[in-house]
């Protein structure tokens, strides 16, 4: 494999940013090879991991080392040669630290794809240059846009097998761009690569000299993510109330949580929901001392000027910028349970930010075909991996925003109350 002496050996400075990206595609598209290439060329892959993979691959009689063995960590995955579940991988360059959520591509694993995309800053979708866009590529793009992944990269892989032909690339790029405009993808980049040969993955390649864009790694290092966060709408879901019960801190009462969105400062006027009382922020603290401002993803403790009744599940916001407070919630739901479908009139537990409520399904408006985007309005239930629009009535109001505007206050999970399993994910529309 290529030498990348310019890269630090899986190290980085302490001031580097974190970028989370999800990869989608199947083994056939060369996804595992691409990830293996990124890990190998950034010197993240360790020798004993490499030896273990080459030994297993050789033992099976593979013609070349199967890099999928690096990421397929479960016995059943190795036996069946498929990726079943999301695997997390880590690498770093001097520019950034990366977390890869490596998700399986097949339609029966839509729920895993949705899971991986839920926290991603960027989605990396792979297509085989010989095959062009297939149903699966469109589905992945749709799911990533549904989950509001802010950046999307289409990697046209196996360029070596089409003689690095620019026309092939252009054709796929145009087709995908046309499709993406229908999906509301905020930022799309299309990059030709050969994961197997290493062309344009870490370094630009002579074979693709006609391509004027960056290498994949360069793009991952440089894509601007700081402004993806919502820094406008101050939302602070109260997670836990800190009351020390000690003589030193007798009257101390702090509201612990992670800033969901917006910026908060000491002195800011805030409203506590659902009660509606207003007060000011007396101080924002961490164990290292007070801070001048708090913003995502900081975990802090907020003290208020007035003693109010505030508990877990409540939310601090600005009086002039409040979330919706509603017991009637319209959402797109991805169903994740194989044993029981989501049913009309079904009752479930819902966890939304730090709030736990119960909910009943009042209406199943339609089921969405994730390949054709066709809406089936005759549907009355959602089965495993199906996505549909439903109306819920909750026992207590949700303090929520449209998912489009705020990923942190627009998403929720659905839990089966009988066995406590997570059976669905919802995004509020």
């Amino acid at each position, binding site marked *: 494999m290529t030498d990348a002496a310019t890269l630090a050996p899986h190290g980085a400075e302490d001031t580097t940013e974190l970028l989370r990206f999800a990869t989608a595609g199947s083994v056939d598209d060369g996804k595992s090879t691409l990830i293996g290439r990124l890990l190998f060329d950034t010197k993240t892959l360790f020798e004993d991991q490499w030896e273990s993979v080459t030994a297993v691959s050789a033992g099976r009689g593979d013609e070349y080392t199967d890099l999928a063995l690096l990421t397929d960590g479960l016995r059943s995955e190795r036996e069946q040669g498929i990726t079943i579940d999301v695997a997390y991988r880590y690498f770093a360059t001097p520019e950034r630290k990366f977390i890869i959520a490596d998700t399986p591509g097949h339609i029966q694993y839509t729920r895993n794809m949705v899971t991986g995309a839920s926290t991603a800053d960027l989605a990396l979708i792979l297509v085989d240059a010989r095959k062009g866009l297939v149903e699966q590529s469109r589905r992945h793009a749709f799911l990533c846009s549904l989950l509001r992944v802010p950046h999307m990269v289409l990697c046209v892989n196996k360029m070596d097998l089409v003689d690095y032909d620019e026309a092939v690339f252009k054709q796929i790029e145009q087709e995908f761009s046309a499709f993406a405009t229908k999906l509301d993808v905020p930022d799309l980049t299309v990059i030709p690569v050969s994961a197997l040969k290493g062309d344009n993955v870490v370094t630009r390649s002579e074979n693709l000299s006609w391509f004027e864009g960056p290498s994949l790694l360069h793009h991952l290092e440089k894509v601007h993510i700081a402004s993806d966060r919502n820094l406008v709408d101050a939302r602070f879901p109260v997670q836990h109330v800190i009351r020390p019960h000690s003589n030193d801190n007798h009257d101390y009462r702090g509201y612990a949580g992670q800033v969901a969105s917006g910026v908060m400062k000491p002195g800011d006027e805030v409203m506590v929901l659902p009660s509606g009382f207003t007060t000011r922020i007396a101080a924002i603290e961490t164990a290292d001392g007070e801070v001048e401002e708090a913003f995502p993803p900081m975990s802090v403790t907020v003290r208020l000027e007035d003693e109010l009744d505030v508990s877990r599940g409540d939310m601090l916001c600005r009086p002039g910028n409040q979330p919706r407070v509603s017991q009637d919630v319209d959402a797109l739901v991805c169903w994740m349970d194989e044993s029981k479908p989501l049913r009309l009139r079904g009752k479930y537990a819902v*966890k939304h930010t730090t709030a736990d409520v119960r909910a009943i399904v009042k209406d199943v408006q339609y089921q969405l075909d994730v390949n054709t985007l066709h809406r089936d309005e005759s549907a009355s239930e959602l089965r495993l991996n199906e996505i549909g629009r439903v109306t819920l009535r909750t026992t207590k109001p949700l303090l929520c925003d449209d998912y489009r505007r705020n990923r942190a206050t627009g998403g929720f999970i659905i839990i089966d109350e009988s066995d406590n399993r997570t059976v669905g994910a919802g995004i509020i529309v």
Partner: protein
Amino acid sequence: MSDYRVSHLAALEAEAIFIIREVVATCQRPVLLFSGGKDSIVMLHLAQKAFAPAPVPFPVMHVDTGQNFDEVIEFRDRRVASTGVQLVIASVQDAIDRGLVTEPPDGTRNRIQTPVLLEAAEKYQFDALFGGARRDEEKARAKERVFSFRDDFGQWDPKNQRPELWNIYNGRVHPGEQIRVFPLSNWTELDVWRYIGEQEIELPPVYFAGPREVVERDGMLYAVNRFITPRDGEEVFTETIRYRTVGDANLTAGVRSEAATIEQIIAEVAATRITERGATRGDDKTSEAAMEDRKREGYF
């Protein structure tokens, strides 16, 4: 700070603190597994930060094989005393004496820790157990959730894990079941060392390089101590080594190193080409799926 960015270490810390607080707010009886190893030391540090100025609101537990490095036990007791947390010790030796578990012929107690852990969890009714495991350590771990559900037998079912979306964690269990929680899931070995350096966290001396009497066994360097005695034909020699992980003293090998300070260790870890478990843990070499199999039985 004016551009509203945080470093990746600050982001990882914020995520871990959120996870720890979430457990305390939603579970009945959490406990932190604390061995005196660096990951559990970082966990205790984060727990203190999560609830300051209040004390850590849960006890710590050590599943004690009785085969520990003396310096680590000394450190454990000192750290627990300075924190003021309650320490629960689940003794493997005691479990052997009572007949709960049988010591394997080779004397390794790693695997028989599991029934001891499960018994203690049941006795104290712990429903959430914090561990310091990271996804970069091993590929079965790379697939495990941050909130990992275990059934009445403590078993992990990798094919039936709860989906985990955004930062919304599902810690609901029925009595007898547990959640294992891994707040350091997204940290790498290097992140842990950088954080230890940044936060000036104290560690047991075994982590720092020093001259030790060792034998070479299966290509690894084991310090001679109460648990490691030279076998026939094995030569004892002095080598400057440190430990990258700290497990049982009879199973954990050291690595040749001159790194005697945190800064030197960070530089060395940044340049190393072998995973910490691969370099130092005889117990993980057994098979391709050794970790997955142990986790299915209830191991951390």
